[in-house]
């Protein structure tokens, strides 16, 4: 009788542990799915900006610019990355943003010089920026590749660079 009761008690404890584990697995699956969505959206965002960068005063022929991303869409992607992206991806994204900003600034200077009736010193700066554009584009491409590599590492089956989750830090 004692052995029967003991077996039952142990079975109940084992079940409890299994159910707790099931809930943790469900939670992890949920988190992983959201991380996947955030990173897929980020990948598309980077590709789109890559097309845009190639269209800014290209060295050869006109390159059509992609349709501009609506602010709402951009904020949505930013929100996903803010919520689920790892700190490393966010850091790399900041660096990428600086590269994109450099291209945007160069574009503004070149446009201003070409539209100005008396370019003067602006013309010199525009020329300098035009020459630097290829370097800016390369830096942005490298920054985007670094983000993609990091994403691949985090989404790999045995992820060793997962974002730090608060309960795991404790």
């Amino acid at each position, binding site marked *: *009788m004692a052995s*029967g*009761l003991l077996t*039952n*008690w142990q*079975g*109940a404890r084992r*079940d*409890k542990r299994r*159910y707790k584990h*099931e*809930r943790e697995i*469900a*939670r992890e699956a*949920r*988190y992983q799915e*959201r991380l996947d969505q955030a990173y897929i959206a980020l990948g598309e965002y980077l590709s789109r900006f890559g097309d845009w960068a190639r269209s800014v005063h290209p060295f050869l022929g006109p390159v059509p610019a992609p349709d501009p991303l609506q*602010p*709402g869409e951009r*904020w*949505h992607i*930013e*929100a*996903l990355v*803010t*919520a*689920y992206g790892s700190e490393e991806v966010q850091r790399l994204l900041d660096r990428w943003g600086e590269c994109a900003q450099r291209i945007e600034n160069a574009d503004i200077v070149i446009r201003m010089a070409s539209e100005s009736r008396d370019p003067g010193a602006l013309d010199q700066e525009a020329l300098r920026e035009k020459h630097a554009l290829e370097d800016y584009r390369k830096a942005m491409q490298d920054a985007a590749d670094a983000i993609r590599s990091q994403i691949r590492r985090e989404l790999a089956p045995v992820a060793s660079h997962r*974002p*730090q*989750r*608060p*309960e795991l830090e404790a």
Partner: protein
Amino acid sequence: MTTTWAAIVISAAGVAVSAAVVVTNVFAVRRAARTQLQIARDQRISDRQSDTYIDLLQWVRGIEADKRDVNILDLAEMLKLPDDLDVRTTAFASKAVRQRVKEFVDARWRLQQKVERDRVRILALIGEALKAKDDAALQAGFPEWPAMAQAAAALRDSIRRELLGDDLA
């Protein structure tokens, strides 16, 4: 006689063990069903909470990006959460996140009040910061501006911590 009693005791013990096994199994089945329900419920709530938080982050970003010089009535309209988001925030956001949203809105209001009181001085500070390419003086003379960015960062941090911890509290 003794043998009869021994047989009765052994049979009673067998019945007791069988009863205990049945009871334990009933509880185990109930617990399994309850766990599955709990997982489904967690999933539903967590999805809604996640959508709400993403929309809140987007809303905050929109307010930060809006650099228009608005009047008080326009600002009141701008800082009002859309009805749907307001309802979802009440239902699914944690107390801490709701508090951070309130702090962000308060910070934006303080910024507006400061701009309306000291418009000329602030415009001069902005001009100086643009000329010097250094906004230290602007931040020191106009602390409401970095305060709003800090409130937004605190809200983002709070949401991120909850979503990464998947806290359903």
